[in-house]
Every structure is written in structure tokens, then in C-alpha cells.
């Protein structure tokens, strides 16, 4: 009796096994071997910073020409060079990026109009317009922190998120998570950035936040032409036009609301 069971089941196993081997051979799909090779050099963080849903689709896409060779933001130049070698092409230079928090409206500097007790995510709070007087600023509930896969962010005591620059890979996950466009990627060597996104007129901004940009355009006037331009009531820094980081110093020093945040600039008197 036992013997029969063993024979029957064993036989079945054998038949299915043969069938599987056969179909694997017969229906084998030729996959570009370069995909495997690229996968080996990718960081496999599956962060999505390249725009693909994950590392594998990115590898397939690079081979198919859908994504640029230097598309992996986490891997940077090193990975770009390796992929280029595998594909036998020239890798363009990777500009390493880092995430910055473009809002200085913390618990002290920004007026709070309401007390929010609902769902504790920025997305939920943004739906009702936030709890601050400024309807453009950081909501402080940390959707960005939650989204960061590299532990490169934490929520500061003052209610604004902080990026740990050494850990940040520039993947941009936080940028996608923020409902208010507070998080942005800037070149890793950017000397300064603007800590405000409010497009409103000076008085309307200063009514609700002491560090918000009042759009006076002084900064644009004290730096070499083209380094900073005004778009509406907000200055935009054109990093690619900045010849010498020192050139931006006067903007930082003269800004009446001290809205510029210094990253790589020494001896600034603010």
C-alpha cells in the first residue's frame, strides 16, 4: 500500500519535473545579459529616484535607452561609469544632488492660526489648508521623513524637517512625498538656497512669518547679473550661472528677512 503511494506520487513528481524542464527550455526568453550585469552594479535601493519603479526596471530601461546612463542618483558617478562601460558608451557627468527644506517658518517664526487635531500626515493637513497663517509653508508632520528610505531625515524640535546631508542620496523621494513642494533637490555644492516658497506680496508674507521672503528683490540686485532673478515675488538662484560662490554672499548678508540658508560659504555675516 505504502509502496503504491510512493510510486504514484514519485511518478507524478517526475512527470511534472520533466514537463517544467521541457517548458523552461522550449519557452526560454532571451534576456539581454547586460541587464544582469547592470543589476550587479546598481545599489539595489529601489528608491525610484531615477524615475523607474525600481532598480530592475531601470536596468531594463537603460539597456533599452529609456533612461540615461547616469540616471541612478544613488549610485552617482561611480555607477554611471560602470554602466557606461557595460554598455560601451560614454557616461555624462553626474551632478550629485542633495535635498533641502525650503521653509524657515518654525514654531516661533511662523504664525499658527489653528490647532489641528486630525490625521497626522502632511497630506491630510494640506487638504484643509494647513494650520499656519502661511498656506504655502511646511506643515511639519513629516511625510518627507516617512518617505526617506535612507534615514537621511528627521523632524527637528522646531517643527521643521532636517536633512542629514551625508546620508542623503538625492533620490528625491521626499520631494515627491511633500504635498507643498517644500522639499527640493539642489546641486550638492550649492552655496546657498532660499528658505521660502511663498509667492505672495511682501506684506502678506511678513504678516504671517518673520523669515519668509518679502520679495524686495535686493538679493537679485547685489549679485552679478543672472545669478539671481526674480520670478514674481520670489528670487530664483541660477546655480549654473554662479562663477564664484563668494558672489552670492551679498545676497545672504543683505536679505532683510534672512531667508537664504547657507550651505557651503564661509565667513558670512548674517
Amino acid at each position, binding site marked *: 500500500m505504502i509502496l503504491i503511494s510512493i510510486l504514484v506520487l514519485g511518478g507524478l513528481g517526475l512527470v511534472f519535473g520533466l514537463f517544467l524542464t521541457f517548458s523552461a527550455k522550449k519557452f526560454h526568453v532571451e534576456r539581454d545579459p547586460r541587464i544582469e550585469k547592470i543589476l550587479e552594479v546598481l545599489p539595489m535601493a529601489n528608491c525610484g529616484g531615477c524615475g523607474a519603479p525600481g532598480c530592475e526596471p531601470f536596468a531594463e530601461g537603460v539597456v533599452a535607452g529609456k533612461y540615461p546612463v547616469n540616471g541612478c542618483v544613488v549610485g552617482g558617478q561611480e555607477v554611471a561609469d560602470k554602466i557606461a562601460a557595460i554598455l560601451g558608451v560614454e557616461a555624462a557627468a553626474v551632478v550629485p544632488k542633495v535635498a533641502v527644506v525650503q521653509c524657515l517658518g518654525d514654531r516661533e517664526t511662523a504664525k499658527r*492660526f*489653528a490647532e489641528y*487635531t*486630525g*490625521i497626522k*500626515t502632511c*497630506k*491630510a493637513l*494640506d*487638504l*484643509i*489648508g*494647513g*494650520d*499656519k*497663517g502661511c*498656506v504655502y509653508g511646511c506643515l511639519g508632520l513629516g511625510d518627507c521623513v516617512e518617505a526617506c528610505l535612507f534615514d537621511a531625515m528627521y523632524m527637528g524640535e522646531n517643527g521643521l524637517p532636517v536633512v542629514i546631508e551625508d546620508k542623503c542620496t538625492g533620490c528625491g523621494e521626499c520631494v515627491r512625498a511633500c504635498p507643498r513642494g517644500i522639499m527640493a533637490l539642489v546641486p550638492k555644492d550649492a552655496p546657498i538656497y532660499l528658505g521660502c516658497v511663498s*509667492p*505672495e*506680496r511682501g506684506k*502678506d508674507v511678513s504678516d504671517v512669518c518673520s523669515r519668509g521672503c518679502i520679495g524686495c528683490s535686493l538679493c537679485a540686485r547685489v549679485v552679478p547679473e543672472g545669478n539671481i532673478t526674480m520670478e514674481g515675488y520670489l528670487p530664483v538662484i541660477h546655480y549654473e550661472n554662479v562663477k564664484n560662490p563668494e558672489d552670492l554672499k551679498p545676497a545672504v548678508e543683505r536679505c532683510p528677512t534672512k531667508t537664504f540658508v547657507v550651505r557651503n560659504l564661509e565667513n558670512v555675516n548674517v
Partner: protein
Amino acid sequence: MKLLKFKGGVHPHDHKELSKSSQIMPVPAPEFVYVPLSQHTGAPSKPIVEKKAQVKKGTRLSEPVGFVSVPVHSPVSGTVMGIVPYYHPLGKKMDAIKIKVEGDEIEDGIGEERDYSNMKKEEMIEAIKMAGIVGLGGAAFPTHVKLSPPPDKPIDTVIINGAECEPYLTSDYRLMLERPDDIIKGTEIIRRILNPKRVVIGIEDNKPDAIQILREKVDGTGIEVVSLPARYPQGSEKQLIYAITGRKVPAGGLPFDVGCYVQNVGTAIAIYEALRFGKPLYERVVTITGGVNKPGNFLVPIGTPASHVIEQAGGVKGEVGKIIFGGPMMGLAQITDAVPVIKGTSGILIQLKNEVHIEDVYPCIRCSSCVDVCPMGLMPNMMEMLINAGKYEMAEKMGLMFCIECGCCSYVCPSKRPLVHTFKMGKREVLKRRKK
């Protein structure tokens, strides 16, 4: 005629006694008004006035952009101070025309009686559009769009909505008591445009006096007045259509898909005023209620900041806890009393600090109470779980986009889960993804 009972729904205490017996009072214009360019569902209108322009009551301030759009008009006479981003009841700031109020002049011709009996259908629809008329029940959908159903979807039933099922609000109720003739005249205009077989005014049975007055007035016109059982959300379009006609609007469909047209009583009056007196929609009746000293119903110029209207209602009785535009079930909490009244504002509810209960949220106990009350037949518990897990496509498959945000589910949930808030968030996320 047997009335059908829609599925689900709840019976919240209606608190209408607060403002029910107070007659509609005009509110004097404030110092400044802020008229948002977008007060309707659809594309925002384009301004046609510039800074320093002199305007009068009823002067058109903007131009519709596209078909699903209406203009806005000045509710006051004065000087345009500019177009500024200003607080809007939907959260966010939106462009608004700021006007400094001076004098009390009215645009030429407004108020003069005119004969509209020979107007053609298209002319009437165009006049309604240019008068800036939108549904005054809350959704603020442009009325002329509803009045132009596709030719293959003829309307056989017109329903005038006097249900006003949202607790606290009494503006429609007062209009029914004070201006029943105008409601009927407006209804007649709608009847002329759509040529339906049946015209019904639906009113919840907790307003017997309104039912009685309208019943007397419709005598001989062929219009029916139907008393509906009071149950929230009876006044919601789809539930109302089902109760009165037994027809079910298909998921994702509109009332005209089942040959129906629903319009609020206030809108009927606005239509009448537009054709009879050339009066654009620049003021509306708003119930100011809850923790104010003199709750009541007020005729408010559009664009008046809530703070000014609250003052007219005797000011707040204590410390403000919440300012809600709309009622407690579907209304939106505001961050400041600077927010202006817009065309869709049916009420402002003030909750005092000691009345606002901040409840702890507990995990879902799978009691399915939310499923029982959902008038749209959805499963709020499942949808919430899916949204929280980031599974938006699956939530969409479960009918997320059909949620009418009535709040019944949040109202009954014993675990006090923020269901509607989650759905609003989820819907926004779905729309964002669709755009990509």
C-alpha cells in the same frame, strides 16, 4: 405616490431650532470684500477689471473660461484694490478681487422688471450663465450646464430640492417660508427650459410649515410638493432622485442619465431674479449659527469675510473652537475667520472651544456600522484600510470616487476613525496619479 427609502443614512440631531425662526436679514457691506475668481466647480473665471476700476453693485468682474465656468459680479459699489491671493473656504489661497466699499450704487438696469415670457430657451440659458448662477446647495455646479443636458438624455423629471438635510442650516427653509412665490416662478422657468413631464418640490417632513405654504402656492400649476422622511443625507442628489422617482443614478453617472434634474430652492430664486430683474448672483442667504449670540439667517454680499458676518450675528459667545463653512456633516473647518462667504456657502457654524470634542482614534473593530449607513453602498472600513496602505488603485476599485463625502460613516464609527478625511485625501491622490 409611494416614496422609496434610500439605503443607509443617519439621524443626527438637527439643531435647526437655533436659527429657524429668525427672518432673513440683510448684512450691511463690510469695509472690504474679497470676491474669489473661482467659486464654482469648473475653470476659474478670468478678471476683466483692473486695479482702481470703479464698480457698482452687480458690475461684472470676470469672464467665464470655457463652458463649465461662470463670471463673478461685484456685490458692492466701490474701488477695485487689485487681484490678490486670499483665503478661500476650500483651504489654500486663491486669486480674489479685493474691493474697497464706497457708497451704495447699483449697476444700471438691475432691479427693473422685464418681461421674459418671449425669451427663447438658449437666451434664458445664456442669461443664467452670465448672471453667474451656480447650485446654491453647496457643490456650486454652474446651473447653465445642468440646464443643457445632452440631446440624447431628455429630462422628464425636475426636482426642486428643499430637503436641507444638513443639521443646523435653515437658509433654504427661510426662503421657502418667506419667498415661496419666487421659488415657484424660478421653477416655472426651469420647466420652460427643460420641458419635463413632472416637476416636484421635495421637502423633509421636519419642515411642515414650508410644505404647507408651498402646497398652497403650487395649486393649479401642476407642480407637486412631496414630503420626504427626514433622514440625512436626504438632500443629496442621488438619494433624492431615488426617493422621488425610484431611479438609481448609475455609479459615476449624473442625474440626467436617469432623466432627472435637481436644483436647490435658492437657485430657483436666483434664476427668477436673473431673468425678471437682471440681477446677477452677488449675494446669498447664509445661516450663521452655533456659538454666536444671535443665530440667524442673513443675506450676505458674496466676498464678505466671515468675521464681519459673525459680528452681525452678535459675535461669538465665548472662545472659538471651530469655524465651519457649511454644516457639521459636510462642512469644512477653516483656519481663520478672514475667509470670505462664496456662492456655495450655505452656512457658517461656530463651535465653541468647550464644544469641540477631540476624540481618541481607536483601531477599526470591524463592526461594519459604516457599511450599514453608507448611502452609496460602499465599504468605508475597507477603503480606509487600503488608502492607509497606499493601495489607491484598489480603493478606487472599491468605489472610492463615488463617495459623496456625506460623513455618515465617520458619524457612526465607534472607533472615531477619520474616514471621510481619509477618503478626501485618497481621492486627491487618485486624481493626482491620473494626471501623471
